[in-house]
């Protein structure tokens, strides 16, 4: 059973500043690097682990393996030129980036987005969540070497990417959401084809449940592992499924309803166990809920209507001086963007805030102390860490 305790008798001594004094020549400790290229690391980052036996006594997160300075690059681009850059901030789920940048620009420029476009934005965001969760849910079992579910999820995800291709022209990066609205209406027959894909997810859900959550190895290893105390949620800035697994309702769609989420009937799942198993369980319920939300959107959204509000020539568009913070709920939790403008045609400052910024650094470093080396990947994946959110 994994517990956090303050007994440091077998751990390195700390100096006055709280830094561990690790004497590698004592042969008591060993430095072990997990990543930057490692199947048990989400993306390109590395963990500098200090271990004694197979137990971790100290962990430091190192990023910088894919730094592309997106926030800086955007300061030299017009607002419309920022879109191809900002979507690449997260490969797995790029749509929240385009939604946030559009919303920030619209808010500062005083643009009202048409109703149909808002429903289409919701659909794109939920489809993005669906394709991420199709990998994340079985991916958690993959960290314990149970890889079969991941292959099933990937197959259905590919079909969802087909729908994205049909809707936007792109499979991974879409640039469907732009300032003022979206780029197009649903193609003919799109709803039926998406519904066929959703039926496959309906079949996938009980299968993946049987495969993972009734599996004795998964239960034995994931239950009680890396428990996040409730009081950490605000102290560390823990969001989304990780917070809901600790019994704290954190879902921007509920707490700050944006677009038309207030017209959708849904209740995010919460539990109290707060371990790796609970976080995975929350994501399974999220997947189920996402299918339901997409069906509600398809049933409630207008068939026709304006999809884009008029905007000035985007190549010469100057946004009034101001600043704002807009957020939405990504599959990993609250995802926000802080935009500062100075009245020119380029952003003065763009700052992206993703949950991984805290999850992969201060939270992960804390959770890994006392853990077994073999559980490192499981703990990391349970926090859904995404390195591009840290080195933007």
């Amino acid at each position, binding site marked *: 059973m994994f517990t956090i305790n303050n007994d440091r008798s077998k751990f390195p001594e700390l100096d006055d500043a709280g830094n561990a004094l690790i004497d590698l020549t004592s042969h008591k400790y060993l430095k072990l690097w997990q990543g930057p290229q490692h199947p048990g690391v989400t993306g390109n980052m590395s963990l500098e682990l200090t271990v004694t036996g197979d137990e971790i006594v100290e962990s430091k997160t190192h990023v910088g393996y894919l730094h592309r300075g997106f*926030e800086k690059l955007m*300061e030299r681009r017009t607002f419309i030129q920022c879109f191809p850059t900002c979507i690449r901030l997260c490969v797995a789920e790029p749509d929240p980036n385009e939604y946030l940048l559009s919303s920030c620009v619209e808010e500062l420029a005083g643009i009202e987005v048409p109703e149909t476009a808002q429903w289409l934005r919701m659909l794109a965001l939920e489809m993005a969540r669906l394709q991420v969760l199709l990998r994340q849910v079985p991916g958690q079992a993959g960290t314990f070497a149970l890889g079969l579910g991941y292959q099933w999820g990937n197959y259905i995800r590919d079909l969802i990417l087909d729908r994205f291709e049909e809707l936007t022209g792109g499979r991974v990066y879409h640039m469907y959401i732009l300032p003022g609205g979206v780029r197009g209406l649903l193609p003919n027959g799109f709803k039926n084809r998406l519904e066929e894909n959703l039926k496959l997810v309906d079949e996938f859900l009980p299968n993946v449940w049987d495969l993972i959550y009734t599996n004795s190895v998964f239960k034995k290893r994931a239950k009680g592992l890396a428990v996040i105390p409730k009081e950490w949620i*605000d102290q560390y*800035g823990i969001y989304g499924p990780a917070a809901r697994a600790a019994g704290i309702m954190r879902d921007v769609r509920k707490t*700050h309803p944006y677009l038309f989420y207030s017209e959708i009937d849904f209740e995010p799942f919460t539990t109290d166990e707060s371990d790796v198993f609970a976080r995975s369980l929350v994501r399974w319920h999220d997947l189920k809920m996402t299918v339901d939300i997409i069906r509600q959107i398809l049933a409630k959204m207008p068939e026709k209507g304006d999809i884009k509000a008029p905007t000035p020539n985007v190549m010469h568009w100057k946004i009034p001086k101001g*600043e704002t*913070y807009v957020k939405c709920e990504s599959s990993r939790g609250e995802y926000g963007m*802080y935009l500062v403008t100075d009245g020119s045609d380029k952003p003065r*400052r763009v700052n992206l805030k993703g949950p991984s910024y805290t999850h992969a650094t201060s939270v992960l470093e804390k959770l890994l102390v006392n853990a077994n080396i073999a559980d490192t990947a499981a703990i990391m994946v349970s926090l859904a860490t995404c390195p591009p959110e*840290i080195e933007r």
Partner: protein
Amino acid sequence: MKQLVEIIQNHFPINDIDLRKKSLAFISIHQNQAIPLLEWLKTTHGYTAFVLLTAVDWIEENRFQLTYLISNPENFTELGVRVFIDREKAEMVSAHHLWKSIWVYQRELKEMFGINFPDSPRVNESFILEGWDTIPPYRRDFDTKQYSEETYFPRPGRSTNDPAKHMKSKLYPKD
């Protein structure tokens, strides 16, 4: 938010108030008053959640803007506290005693903007960059293009081949 801002005004000298939307406002305060204000908001007004800390370089005014965005999880409101610091003496009191994750932001700001937060944990450790020996890259006067050209191009050992000629030489070396 308007009510909260009025309460703050009774206790702290704030200015530049921007009631951005129903659940979001921005205020500015003097550098020396910022940390006491954040502590007061956290302990007495439920702003227990820290959202982000970032900087904006107003190079033409020779100052940095630090924005602390904090949130109240009870009423779901957010407050941005702006602090302006001298660009020549880029230093701010650390707030790591208030939130356990803020040291990561401070460490990044030290590296990317050169803003120091004395006593903040691991503030002098490299965060993303290693061996960086020029001005911090997120300052406005750092020219990314010039830096790339000076640092990376031309790379020795690289040459450009005309694809048609190259393939011909490979396939028909005797011609």
